[in-house]
């Protein structure tokens, strides 16, 4: 038995008058459309198995009507399953009595709604404090807490306003503050940012990421936007017609889509913003560690490339080229390798998003060295591998990546324009 924080096992949800009666048909594999046409029952969810680890952001995505809202409403039992189990921290949510369920909703789990779900007759402050008011916490105490959370989400000064007086982005901040105010360790977010315009949406995403760094909540986040999913998710699950198609780390989904449905999803994604250097870098070309020019030239000639990364005790220093080394050797082959012969090429971090390293990569004459935070050279990023990842992705680049040898600087010029087109 696994010890994941949240486990969903064999979950089925069928909407209609008599779900149990049509269950055999569903188990026999009847499709959603057929079942609806023949029996008037809708398959909401079908055989969902999931595990969510504590402190992670788990993203569920899929097209409209695929059952995302239905799934998320099972975690706090706004909807009861037709069949299956939901374990949270080892407890079966289905076994809770009405009282226990209310307590569970009060203290353990909170929710942010797609259309905000704010109470129009209560002020912003009262809305944020709602969860605490339900718990019968004293007015002064709960208002104090609500005030703090409002400040955290950047809405200080709006306490006495009514939701209708705020913009959509501000209302969703109130929704977020309300969810955070009860100190629940699980946060359900049903398309929380979908109703916001792109600018405010990415602002809210930043805020969520920033908050999550401090709070380490377990977040189930629903979206139909893959860019958002890739940005926020530690894991991503993709639903289609109530079925779980694929579940995995963001790069997995992007680089190895399970079927055409997922593939169609990932086709339009802005890869530059989704993939990190680590996922597309290749093993580094030669390293040169010799101290003198002559030694360096000898090491260089043993590599196939006409460039190599110079590394000394202090780690990566710069790029050496055969041409320059040979010129320097004609002067004084016993001289020490120094800045005069080194070509300075800024290293990039393996965790950087491709988007952020795009200009440097395109500007450089040689593949950029990838240096991790310990100063180790762990790979190189060429224009070719960057362009390939941006243009097609999928299985193709995966094999090319494993191929090892890098022909970047040869046909670099040709792919630069392609990469430029992807960058827009």
């Amino acid at each position, binding site marked *: 038995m696994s010890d994941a924080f949240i486990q969903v096992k064999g979950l089925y949800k069928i909407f209609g008058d008599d779900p149990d009666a049509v269950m055999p048909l569903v188990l026999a594999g009847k499709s959603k459309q057929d079942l609806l046409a023949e029996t008037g029952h809708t398959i909401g969810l079908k055989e969902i198995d999931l595990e969510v680890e504590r402190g992670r952001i788990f993203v569920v995505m899929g097209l409209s009507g695929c059952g995302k809202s239905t799934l998320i409403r099972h975690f706090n039992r*706004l909807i009861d399953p037709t069949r299956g189990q939901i374990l949270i921290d080892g407890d079966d949510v289905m076994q809770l009595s009405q009282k226990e369920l209310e307590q569970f*909703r009060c203290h353990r789990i909170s929710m942010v709604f797609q259309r905000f779900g704010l109470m129009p007759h209560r002020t912003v402050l009262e809305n944020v404090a709602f969860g605490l008011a339900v718990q019968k916490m004293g007015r002064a105490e709960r208002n104090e807490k609500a005030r703090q959370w409002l400040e955290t989400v950047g809405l200080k000064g709006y306490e006495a306003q009514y939701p209708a007086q705020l913009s959509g982005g501000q209302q969703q901040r109130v929704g977020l503050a309300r969810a955070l105010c009860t100190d629940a360790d699980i946060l359900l977010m049903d398309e929380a940012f979908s109703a916001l315009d792109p600018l405010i949406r990415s602002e809210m995403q930043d805020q969520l990421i920033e908050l999550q760094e401090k709070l380490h909540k377990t977040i189930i986040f629903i979206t139909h936007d893959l860019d958002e999913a890739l940005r926020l998710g530690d894991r991503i699950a993709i639903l289609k017609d109530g079925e779980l198609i694929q579940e995995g780390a963001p790069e997995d989904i992007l680089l190895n889509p399970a079927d055409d449905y997922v593939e169609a999803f990932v086709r339009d994604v802005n890869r530059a913003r989704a993939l990190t250097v680590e996922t597309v870098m290749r093993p580094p070309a030669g390293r040169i560690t010799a101290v003198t020019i002559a030694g360096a030239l000898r090491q260089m000639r043993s590599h196939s490339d006409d460039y190599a990364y110079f590394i000394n005790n202090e780690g990566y220093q710069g790029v050496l080229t055969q041409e320059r080394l040979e010129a320097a050797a004609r002067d004084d082959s016993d001289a020490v390798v120094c800045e005069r012969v080194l070509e300075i090429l800024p290293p990039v971090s393996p965790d950087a998003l491709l988007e952020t390293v795009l200009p440097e990569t395109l500007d450089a004459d040689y593949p950029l060295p990838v240096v991790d935070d310990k100063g180790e050279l762990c790979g190189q990023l060429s224009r070719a591998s960057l362009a390939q990842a941006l243009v097609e992705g999928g299985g193709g680049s995966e094999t090319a990546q494993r191929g090892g040898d890098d022909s970047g600087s040869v046909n670099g010029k040709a792919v630069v324009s392609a990469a430029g087109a992807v960058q827009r």
Partner: protein
Amino acid sequence: MADSTWLTEFPSMDRADLVAIRKFLDSGFREFSRNYGDAIEAFFDPLLAFLVWFEQLLLQSPWWIIILVVACLAYLASRSAKLTLGVVAAFLLIGYFGMWDNAMRTMGIIAVSTLLSIALGVPIGILMSGSNRVQSIVTPILDVMQTMPAFVYLIPVVMLLGIGKVPGIIAVVIYAIPPVIRLTNLGIRLVDREVLEAATAYGANRRQRLFGVQLPLAMPTIMAGINQTIMMALAMVVIASMIGVKGLGQPVLKSITNQYFTMGLFNGLAIVALAIVFDRVSQAYAKRSQKHLEGMNSE
């Protein structure tokens, strides 16, 4: 030939059978009222006592205190000096034309039957909103209550309780209660599903959801229902006066039978004045208590 008379004449029930049915029902009900009339009357005694007390309060208090109180209430409800002045003027005119006592009696009846309608109607509306079954049972009953001519249900009420204030109140309530029930039900059903879901998701129980979310959000609709109920209660005043309810209705009834045009007109206008006062004040109150909606409308 004799067999085909049903083609030209409706094949109605045998006269004797019809009489039998009538006899059966009439005597059954008479029996019922003879046996239980007193018990039922006793049941309504507290209501009668309250009604009498309230009427006496209105009648015994000096007229200027009443006007002062009414003006204060109107101002508190509406926060509008203009409306308050209008209310005072209406009462002064009613008093000046010699209809003060009757107006007070009518106000007493209206106030009590409105309170009764709210006290019964809102809970029924809440029950209805919670279950489609209850709704499908109550709705046709409300339809009958609203369309059945008032005189018809006056008969059993009078047979049971005789003539007087209580049957009058019952008649008024039967006639006036449907709007508040219907609109309470409607208002609660119209509450945004997601807002209610949010309350549930934060652990609110049934009672907290009802009083914290559903009723407050349904309030504008419920207030519209209460307003309708007051108006319909006023409309029943004349009919209620036929079974002994004193007030502005009686002079109107008298002027119909004796063809006193002016008397009828004045009392009729007094009823209209009361109606306008109740309507404007309750609507101003409803509007003022829904301040949060203002931002929404302007958006």
